[in-house]
C-alpha cells in the first residue's frame, strides 16, 4: 500500500521518468564514446603497424636485391626486438616461410585457411592487389588471451627484382611474397579496457549525480510547494481560512500559491461579511424583541406618571414626577435608537451644544466614578458653535464611552480625561463618499464589501476579455481600493457600472500623474468625483469638496489609563456582540456608538496600549452642508 502510494507521487514519477531517460542517454553516449575510443586506439595501432611494415619492407629491400638473406634476417630480428612486436615473417608465393623473427617457423608452410591468410585466400585464389584496410586483421592469439593485429604487406615484383643478379624471380611474377607483421594488442587492449572502465565509472557517477540533483530540485521546486498547496487546501477544507501559504517563489506554483492566498483571503472576507450581516440580522431581531418586551412596562410607567403629573397639585411631587416622565422618555429614546441602529435609520438632529452634552454625560457617570475614586479631567474648548446633532444619541455615545473607561481603570489610581476642541481638516483623507451613482443614476454603493467599515464603491472592469470588479475606498484620498482582477495598464480597459454596464471612463481626460484612464461618477448632491484607475496611482479629485476647502470638526477625545485593549481585538471592537467584558456586557455598546457617529457623518477611532490605556477619538463635522 505504502509502495503504491509512493509510486503515485508526482515527484517519484518525475524522478523515475527523468532518471530512465538520463540513464538511457548517458548509456548510449558512453557506449558510443567507448566505441570511438576503441576505434581510435586500434587505428593508431594500425597506422603504427603499417608504418612498421613499410619500414621493414624498405629496409630489407636492398638486402633482398642482393640476395643476402642473413642480412635480411638480421634486420628483421633487430626490428622484432621492438616491444609489442609479436612476429615478423616473410613468406613466399607458395606460402613457405622464408624469414621469421622466430626461427623455428622458418621453412614451414602457412595454412591458407588460417586467420592470417584469410584476407587474400578466401576464394582459394590468391589476390594480387589488396586494399589497405583488408590487409589488417585482428585475431586472438593461440598462446594467450591477448589479441594480435596482423598486417600483411605483399611484396610486388619490380624491375630491380627480376634484373637482380640472383635471378630468383622471373619478370612475369607479380607478387613475390608477403611480409607479415604481427603486433600484440596487449597494451592497446589494456588501454581500451581502462578507458572503458573510466567511461563506465563516469557514466555511473553522472547518472547518480544527475539523479541526486534532479531529486533535490524536484523536491525543492515541486514536491515541497505541491505538499504545501495540498496542506493548505486541506486546511481551508477544514474551515481554516486564515491559513496563508508562505512565499513559494515566482514560478507557476508560486503564482498558484499567491492566487490561492488571494482566494482564501476573498473567502475569509466574504465569510466575515456574511458573519457580520448575520450578526446584524440577529441583533436586529433581538433588539426588536427586547424593544417589544421593554416597551410594555415603559408604557405603563410613562402613562401612569404623565397622568399623575397632569392631576397632581403638590409642587414637590410634581417635580419628582417630572423626573420620572423625563427619564422614561429618555429610556424610550434609547430603545428607539437601538432599533434605529438596527434599521440604520436617521438621527433626529437639532442645533445643540456639544460641550453641554458631554457635561450631561459626565454628570450621569460622575457618581459612579467618585464612588470608585476615579479621577476625571474635563478639558473642553469654549466657544464651539452649535451644530446639528442628535443630543440623545450623542449623550448615549459619551455615557457609553465613559462607562467603558471606568470599567477599564483601577479603583483609586484610575484617571479618565475628556477633551473637546475645534480642528480644521482638509476633505482629502477624511471625507467619506456615502452615495455614488453612474450616469444612468444606478447606485454604485456596495454594502457587501466594506473598507474600514464603510460601504465601498463597486465598479466593473473588463480587460482583454477578463472581467472583474474593483471596490473603491469610500474615504476621499485614502485609496485602500480592493481590486478583483489584476490590471497592468489602462489600455483597452473598460470601467463600467455593474448594473447597467454604462462606461464610467472620462474619455476626455487622463490622470495628471500617470496618464492612466480616469473613472468618474456623481456623488449626489456633492458633485463629480474623479480618480485614477491605476492601482499604483493615488490621484483623486473631488472638486465640489475641494472648493469648499478645509472643514471644521469638533474633536472629542476620551482617554483612560486603564488596562488597554489587545492589539488583535482592536479591529473588532466596533462589531456588534463583540465584548471583552464577558458576561457583563451585551457587546452592543460600541457597535451602536459606531452607528450613531457614522449617522452624524463623523468618524470614531481607537488607540490603545496594553497596561497604558485607551483613547477614543471622535471627529464630528461642524458644517453639515459640504
Amino acid at each position: 500500500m505504502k509502495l503504491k502510494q509512493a509510486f503515485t507521487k508526482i515527484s517519484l514519477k518525475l524522478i523515475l521518468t527523468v532518471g530512465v531517460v538520463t540513464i538511457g542517454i548517458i548509456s548510449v553516449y558512453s557506449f558510443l564514446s567507448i566505441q570511438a575510443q576503441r576505434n581510435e586506439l586500434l587505428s593508431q595501432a594500425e597506422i603504427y603497424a603499417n608504418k612498421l611494415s613499410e619500414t621493414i619492407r624498405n629496409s630489407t629491400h636492398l638486402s633482398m636485391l642482393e640476395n643476402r638473406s642473413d642480412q635480411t634476417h638480421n634486420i628483421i630480428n633487430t626490428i622484432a626486438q621492438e616491444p609489442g612486436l609479436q612476429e615478423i615473417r616473410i613468406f613466399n608465393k607458395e606460402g613457405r616461410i622464408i624469414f621469421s623473427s622466430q626461427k623455428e617457423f622458418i621453412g614451414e608452410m602457412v595454412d591458407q585457411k588460417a586467420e592470417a591468410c584469410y584476407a587474400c585466400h578466401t576464394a582459394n585464389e590468391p589476390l594480387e592487389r589488396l586494399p589497405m584496410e583488408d590487409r589488417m586483421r585482428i585475431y586472438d592469439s593461440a598462446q594467450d588471451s591477448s589479441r594480435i593485429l596482423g598486417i600483411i604487406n605483399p611484396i610486388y615484383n619490380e624491375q630491380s627484382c627480376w634484373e637482380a643478379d640472383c635471378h630468383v624471380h622471373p619478370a612475369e611474377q607479380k607478387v613475390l611474397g608477403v611480409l607479415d607483421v604481427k603486433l600484440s594488442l596487449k597494451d592497446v587492449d589494456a588501454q581500451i579496457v581502462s578507458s572503458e572502465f573510466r567511461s563506465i565509472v563516469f557514466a555511473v557517477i553522472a547518472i547518480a549525480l544527475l539523479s541526486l540533483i534532479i531529486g533535490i530540485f524536484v523536491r525543492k521546486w515541486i514536491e515541497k510547494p505541491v505538499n504545501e498547496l495540498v496542506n493548505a487546501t486541506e486546511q481551508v477544507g477544514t474551515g481554516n481560512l486564515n491559513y496563508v501559504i508562505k512565499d513559494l517563489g515566482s514560478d507557476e506554483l508560486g503564482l498558484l500559491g499567491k492566487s490561492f492566498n488571494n482566494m482564501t483571503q476573498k473567502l475569509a472576507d466574504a465569510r466575515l461579511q456574511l458573519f457580520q450581516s448575520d450578526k446584524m440580522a440577529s441583533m436586529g431581531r433581538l433588539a426588536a424583541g427586547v424593544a417589544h418586551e421593554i416597551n410594555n412596562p415603559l408604557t405603563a410607567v410613562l402613562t401612569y406618571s404623565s397622568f399623575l403629573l397632569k392631576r397632581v397639585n403638590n409642587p414637590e411631587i410634581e417635580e419628582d414626577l417630572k423626573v420620572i416622565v423625563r427619564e422614561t422618555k429618555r429610556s424610550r429614546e434609547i430603545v428607539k435608537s437601538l432599533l434605529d441602529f438596527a434599521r440604520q435609520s436617521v438621527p433626529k438632529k437639532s442645533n445643540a451644544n456639544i460641550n453641554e452634552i458631554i457635561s450631561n454625560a459626565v454628570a450621569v457617570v460622575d457618581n459612579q466614578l467618585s464612588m470608585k475614586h476615579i479621577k476625571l479631567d474635563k478639558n473642553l474648548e469654549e466657544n464651539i458653535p452649535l451644530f446639528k446633532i442628535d443630543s440623545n444619541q450623542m449623550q448615549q455615545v459619551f455615557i457609553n464611552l465613559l462607562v467603558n473607561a471606568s470599567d477599564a481603570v483601577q479603583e483609586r489610581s484610575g484617571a479618565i480625561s475628556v477633551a473637546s476642541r475645534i480642528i480644521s481638516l482638509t476633505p482629502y483623507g477624511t471625507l467619506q463618499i456615502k452615495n455614488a451613482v453612474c450616469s444612468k443614476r444606478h447606485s454604485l454603493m456596495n454594502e457587501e464589501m466594506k473598507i474600514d467599515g464603510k460601504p465601498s464603491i463597486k465598479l466593473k472592469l473588463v480587460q482583454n476579455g477578463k472581467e472583474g470588479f474593483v471596490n473603491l475606498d469610500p474615504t476621499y484620498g485614502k485609496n485602500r481600493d480592493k481590486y478583483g482582477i489584476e490590471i497592468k495598464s489602462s489600455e483597452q480597459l473598460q470601467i463600467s457600472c455593474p448594473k447597467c454596464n454604462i462606461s464610467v471612463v472620462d474619455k476626455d481626460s487622463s490622470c495628471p500623474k500617470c496618464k492612466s484612464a480616469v473613472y468618474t461618477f456623481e456623488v449626489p448632491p456633492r458633485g463629480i468625483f474623479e480618480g485614477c484607475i491605476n492601482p499604483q496611482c493615488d490621484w483623486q479629485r473631488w472638486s465640489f469638496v475641494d472648493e469648499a476647502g478645509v472643514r471644521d470638526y469638533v474633536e472629542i477625545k476620551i482617554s483612560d489609563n486603564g488596562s488597554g485593549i489587545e492589539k488583535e481585538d482592536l479591529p473588532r471592537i466596533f462589531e456588534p456582540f463583540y465584548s471583552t467584558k464577558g458576561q457583563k456586557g451585551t457587546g452592543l455598546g460600541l457597535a451602536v456608538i459606531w452607528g450613531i457617529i457614522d449617522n452624524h457623518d463623523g468618524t470614531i477611532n481607537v488607540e490603545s496600549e496594553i497596561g497604558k490605556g485607551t483613547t477614543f477619538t471622535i471627529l464630528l463635522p461642524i458644517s453639515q452642508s459640504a
Partner: protein
Amino acid sequence: MTKDEKILVIDDEQVILNAVSRIATAEGLNVDSDNDAASALKKLSHKEYSLILCDIMMPQMDGFIFLDEMQKRKILTPVIMITGYSTVENAVKSLYKGAIDFVPKPFTFEELNSAISRGIKFYRVQKGIEDAKFRNDKTSILYVPGPPKYKRLGNLSWMNLQSEGIAVIGATDLFLETIEKLVNIELMEIDAEIIQGDSCANLVTDDELIHRLLSPVGGRIIERNEKIFKDINLLEKDPYFAGWIYKVIPSNMEYDLKYLVPFASDRM
C-alpha cells in the same frame, strides 16, 4: 368628551389595558377591554363601540388579522393601533389596511389622549356621512377629499409627487376635521430627515392637545411653508394647496408608495 362614548381596548398585556382604561375612564369614556382579539371580535357583534384601540403584536390573532376580520364583517368602527417602535413599518401597513391612526408605545398620557380624541371625532364624522347617506342628503359636506393624483397615508397626511422628484406633503382635511381649532404648529428644521409613518409636525389645538402628523414619505426636508406660521388657518382653509407643509426629497419613494392610497380610489 361626552360620557356615553364606549371604547374597546385590545392588548395581550394586562398592564397596558389597565393604563389605557385608567386614562380613558378619567377622560369620561366608557371602557371595555379584552386581552384577546378573537374574543373582542365576538363582543363587536353585539355591542357598538365608538373606537377600538388595538395592539399589533399579539399571540394567536394579531392586529392585522383583526383588521381583516373587521373588514370581512363590515364593522366600520374606527381602529387605532397601539404598537411598539419596533414596528413602525407594521404601523404604516396597518394604516393601509384600514386603521385610522396609530400610537407608538411607550406613549404618554397626552399622546394617548389626543389620539383617542381624534378617534372619537373620526367616528362622529363617519356617523355624519352615514346619516347623510341615509337621508339621501348630498349637499352636506363633512370633509373635502384631496385631488385625485394625490396619495394619502391612511386618512392622516397626503403627498403629491412633483415633476422634479420633489414630494409636497400636508395634512388631509379629514385629519384636520378630527382635531379642534388649530392654535399653533411646530415644524422640523430644513435638512432634517423624516421617516414614513414617523411624526413630522406637531399640531397644537385650543383644547391643549398636541397632535402628531405622521409623514406620508421618508426623505430630507428642503422647504417649509413659512406662510402657515403667519396664518395657521391656511391649513384648514386650503389643506391641499396653499396649506402644504413641507417639500421633501424622498429617500425611498418606491418603497413608501407601497402603503399609500391614491385619493382617486375614494371617488369610485
